[in-house]
């Protein structure tokens, strides 16, 4: 689980507690459940009745007289989260089965609550969102596997289910795609029955750009690669600017804190360097692994992959790319903060010659192809000759140009980039420099965009995106992303230990309202942890609501 | 034309408790080179009367009526600029609390020079030399060092002298000294008064001396005005005031002067305390404290009349002897029954006069430099209608 999207920074908007209607869609989880007695009914009332009946059952089993008192939490920095938590609070209190209070905490305190809720047996409902990458493993492992209990993992409510563990373990140790799809299907059904947490919404990334500067923009679905569309030969994408100027100015929501891949710990740094570093493989805009520094690869056996490396690739510092770079780059992860990125699967590399190597895994590893593309860095970085934290050096189409702390981060076109051009993408990016202005306030980002100081913004609030969507001056490009919002139940605690209670609450969640009212239509309602972005694995694909 | 003519001056302060008429229809005049005293208890309005002369009354107070003429010019009609030139140059004042009168953040010398510069008297080196010589003139022992001292570094007596030096820096025709000797010990008081008398003669400066201490008046003044609750109750040349006090209040004040060899420090010879000026007594303001008060005193306000003629003296111009008591308008039945005894240095005691007709045959012996007077006036009947409150001074 790469990105911890805990603390948003939106301030100043009124919390939403307006007219709250009954959720418009029947819970998808309900459809999945074995208890299909109300299958044919679609009326909201029926959903609600069945939901309340479920909760009542649970209460009776536990001998609890309603209303049951509890508290729902959100962190103070995230306005949207506060609003949807309050919607849930309202919905639960409407049933008279619960007496739910609401509390917001500062992020640090909130984080502690989350990580220690099970240990302290806190009577709390907690709201959160997480985002992952291109492999389903990321979305389920840390959240549901009993080995990843908080505080060392994201299994916050210490959910433990043998079958779940088994499915997660077998899916990750399986490299056959079909087999994996099946396993994840079974896993999601299992989770839908158990409801250790309720998934509410899956997120969306949006970029707003000025039409006069940019004709068209393709959104990369995952955070960390926002600027890839400027020049991504691996995905057949590049940016044509409207006029002859070759400078592109965009925004970054935070300062670039560390650009060494083995120490990188935030999305902004990732974003700032994704055009600088290249890996063996890249995952294209649709989630398909593509060759990058490797020209070809094949799986020799369950734990061995062979790669043919691209020739004539030069690093920004003049080194020529060889198999040794791959080995050294992988090796740097050992004992580093980002060790698991590689050492979850990596056993070693056999360098056959400069352009051919074999990667040995510790075991069969399903997500290998989406994981192997870690940045390949020059040997000088391993020698300590250059410090990647100060000056990232890679083989990408752009090289690091200038960094004004807290002000901007600038990339310059790398003219010796290896790509020779093809039908879709020219040999050279049209944009010569990319400046990412660091603007930490969403309102200031919008102002800068409107004042023509930005050509594009990747960090507008949902409201601002919706606002500018109708404006002909601006183009808005959205993409479903690998993030989802969810509600954590204290399933270690009566009556939340009863699956009926959790299932009942799950059905009451006003998902549609949350998406429409709180997120201004950004994102979609969600029921399972594997987002629609991973269409092959997600069992939600299409329109799950009906 | 007198140097200063004050006519029917009335000054009011507006407080939440009510309107305080601190000076109520005040008239007097000061001749060139003359030393004139305004005497009264604390709270009688003496300081307000002095500040009014330079139009230094500020909110919530104001001069509501009357005229002040300086060399015949209407002070109340001065423009801001005329007023500024008048202040310090024509008439200078030394406040009751000399240390507070000077700005604490500038040296004494800077402030003297500043005053001279403001009136184009002197600048630069000349101003400095003049300032030091002024400090020397007011008997400051080390004028050079006093020049560079800050006000808080001076002792009370030194500060008073420094303030007087500042006041004299532009050769004013009128010097107003508000309680110049208050807070100083007896020896320094005496030295200061000597200095003042000396200066008044040298510079031919008229002095208006405001004090509660009749001893000071006896030492160095020509004429005096006794003030009670905002009003002038008696006005006379100093000899007459001392030997023939014609208002019971004056008599009471005289009785309170401490004497050598008298064990008692201050005699509460005028029992009770001055009235609250937001609500002065009806009739004669002094009547609640007056041992001789009769019914008429409570219902009629006695005018200030000339003793000899019994005529009102609204303008108060001549060096006459006037008093505001029904005794002198013929309305008092019982009369004023007190006597004045003159005691000389040798302790001989002779009763020279009795009642309002008493005449003084001995020479006034009060101008001695020890600042003590030897007169004692005691009302025979100390019983009064007022409270027997302690007075602060």
């Amino acid at each position: 689980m790469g990105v911890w999207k805990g603390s948003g920074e939106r301030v100043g908007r009124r919390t939403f507690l307006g007219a709250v209607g009954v959720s418009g869609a029947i819970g998808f989880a309900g459809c999945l459940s074995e208890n299909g007695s109300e299958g044919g009914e679609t009326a909201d009332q029926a959903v609600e009745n069945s939901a309340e009946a479920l909760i009542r059952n649970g209460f009776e089993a536990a001998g609890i007289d309603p209303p049951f008192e509890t508290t729902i939490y959100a962190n103070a920095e995230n306005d949207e989260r506060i609003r949807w938590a309050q919607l849930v609070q309202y919905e639960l209190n409407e049933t008279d089965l619960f007496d739910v209070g609401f509390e917001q905490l500062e992020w640090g305190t909130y984080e502690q609550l989350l990580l220690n809720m099970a240990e302290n047996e806190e009577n709390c409902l907690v709201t959160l969102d997480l985002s992952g990458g291109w492999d389903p493993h990321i979305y389920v492992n840390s959240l549901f596997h009993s080995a990843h209990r908080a505080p060392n993992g994201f299994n916050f409510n210490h959910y433990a289910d043998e079958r779940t563990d088994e499915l997660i373990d077998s899916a990750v140790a399986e490299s056959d795609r079909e087999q994996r799809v099946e396993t994840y299907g079974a896993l999601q059904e299992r989770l839908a029955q158990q409801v250790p947490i309720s998934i509410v919404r899956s997120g969306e990334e949006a970029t707003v750009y000025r039409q006069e500067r940019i004709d068209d923009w393709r959104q990369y679905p995952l955070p960390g690669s926002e600027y890839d569309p400027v020049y991504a030969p691996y995905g057949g994408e590049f940016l044509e600017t409207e006029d002859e100027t070759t400078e592109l100015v965009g925004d970054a929501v935070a300062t670039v804190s560390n650009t060494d891949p083995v120490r990188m710990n935030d999305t902004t740094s990732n974003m700032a360097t994704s055009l600088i570093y290249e890996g063996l493989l890249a995952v294209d805009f649709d989630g398909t692994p593509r060759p990058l520094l490797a020209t070809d690869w094949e799986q020799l056996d369950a734990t061995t992959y062979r790669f043919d490396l691209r020739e004539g690739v030069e690093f920004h510092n003049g080194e020529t790319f060889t198999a040794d770079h791959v080995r050294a780059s992988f090796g740097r992860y050992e004992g580093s903060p980002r060790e698991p990125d590689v050492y979850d699967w990596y056993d070693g590399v056999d360098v056959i010659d400069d352009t051919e190597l074999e990667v040995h895994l510790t075991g069969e590893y399903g997500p290998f192809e989406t994981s192997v593309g870690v940045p390949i860095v020059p040997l000088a970085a391993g020698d300590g000759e250059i410090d990647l934290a100060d000056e990232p050096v890679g083989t990408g189409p752009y090289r690091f140009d200038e960094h004004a702390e807290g002000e901007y981060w600038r990339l310059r076109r790398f003219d010796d980039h290896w790509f020779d051009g093809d039908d879709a993408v020219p040999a050279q990016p049209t944009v010569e420099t990319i400046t990412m202005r660091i603007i930490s306030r969403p309102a200031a980002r919008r102002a800068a965009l409107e004042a023509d100081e930005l050509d594009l913004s990747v960090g507008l609030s949902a409201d601002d995106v919706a606002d500018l969507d109708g404006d002909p001056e601006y183009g808005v490009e959205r993409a479903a992303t690998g993030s989802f919002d969810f509600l954590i139940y204290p399933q270690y605690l009566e009556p939340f230990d009863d699956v009926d209670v959790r299932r009942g609450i799950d059905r009451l969640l006003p998902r549609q309202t949350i998406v429409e009212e709180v997120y201004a239509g950004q994102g979609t309602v969600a029921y399972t942890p594997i987002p629609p972005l991973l269409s092959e694995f997600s069992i939600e694909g299409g329109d799950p609501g009906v | 034309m007198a140097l200063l003519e004050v006519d029917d001056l009335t000054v009011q302060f507006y407080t939440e408790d009510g309107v305080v008429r601190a000076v109520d229809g005040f008239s007097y005049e000061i001749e060139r080179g003359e030393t004139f005293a305004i005497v009264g208890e604390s709270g009688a309005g003496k300081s307000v009367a002095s500040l009014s002369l330079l139009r230094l009354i500020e909110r919530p107070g104001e001069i509501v009526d009357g005229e002040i003429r300086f060399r015949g010019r209407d002070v109340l009609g001065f423009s801001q600029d005329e007023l500024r030139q008048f202040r310090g140059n024509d008439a200078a004042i030394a406040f009751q609390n000399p240390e507070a009168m000077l700005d604490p953040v500038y040296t004494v010398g800077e402030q003297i020079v500043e005053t001279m510069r403001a009136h184009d008297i002197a600048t630069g080196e000349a101003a400095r030399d003049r300032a030091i010589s002024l400090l020397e003139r007011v008997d400051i022992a080390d004028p050079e060092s006093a020049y560079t001292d800050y006000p808080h570094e001076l002792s009370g007596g030194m500060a008073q002298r420094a303030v007087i030096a500042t006041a004299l820096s532009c050769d004013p025709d009128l010097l107003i000294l508000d309680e110049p000797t208050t807070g100083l010990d007896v020896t320094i008081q005496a030295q200061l008064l000597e200095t003042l008398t000396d200066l008044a003669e040298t510079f031919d400066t008229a002095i208006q001396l405001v004090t509660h201490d009749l001893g000071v008046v006896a030492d160095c003044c020509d004429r005096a005005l006794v003030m009670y609750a905002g009003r002038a109750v008696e006005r006379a040349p100093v000899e007459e005031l001392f030997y023939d006090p014609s208002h019971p209040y004056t008599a009471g004040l005289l009785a309170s002067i401490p004497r050598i060899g008298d064990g008692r420090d201050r005699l509460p010879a005028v029992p009770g305390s001055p009235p609250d000026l937001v609500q002065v007594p009806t009739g004669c303001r002094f009547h609640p404290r007056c041992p001789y008060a009769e019914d008429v005193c409570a219902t009629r306000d006695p005018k200030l009349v000339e003793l000899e003629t019994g005529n009102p003296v609204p303008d108060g111009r001549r060096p006459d002897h006037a008093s505001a008591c029904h005794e002198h308008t013929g309305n008092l039945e019982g009369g004023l029954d007190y006597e004045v005894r003159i005691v000389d240095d040798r302790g001989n005691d002779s009763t020279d006069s009795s009642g309002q007709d008493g005449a003084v045959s001995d020479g006034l012996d009060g101008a001695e430099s020890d600042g003590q007077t030897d007169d004692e006036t005691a009302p025979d009947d100390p019983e009064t209608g007022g409270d027997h409150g302690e007075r602060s001074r």
Partner: protein
Amino acid sequence: MRRIYESRALERSADEPFVPSTNGDERSPRTIDWDAFSHAFVPSALRNRAISVSVTTDRDVYALEEPVRLTVEFHNRLPFPIRLRTDSPNVWTWSVDGFAAASCVSRGVPDRPSTFSFARNERKRFRRTWSQRLRISETEWEGVGPGHYTVSAGVSREDARGLTDRTTIEIRE
């Protein structure tokens, strides 16, 4: 001089006998002048209603020539400061049978607006003594006879409705 400043409305520090602090203003160097704030934002109807006025005498019946001690109290009932506009710098008056300060002679206070300020919940109490004499001219007073007298007090304002109070006393032979 000193006497003026001993009256309760004027504060002064011991070492600075000339310092008259203007009424109600700058009681503390707070950044926001709540007094002015309330003046600007509290409607005048409410401001008038906020202040209650009462006149009391030490007894109901007096012997002839016995001083009548009266107490006038203004009380700000609201928990924030209130500032009233008045028609005169003499911000409040008392009267006997309509004679201001028991006098037929006006006191010569200029006609100009002023203000009367109250801290939150402040009570201001003033005392007056009426000697049972009415001033009939500049220099003469006359004792009143037995009978009923109305003593009243109020804020100096033309439209002082609600900002006045009265009480009746009897003087007996």
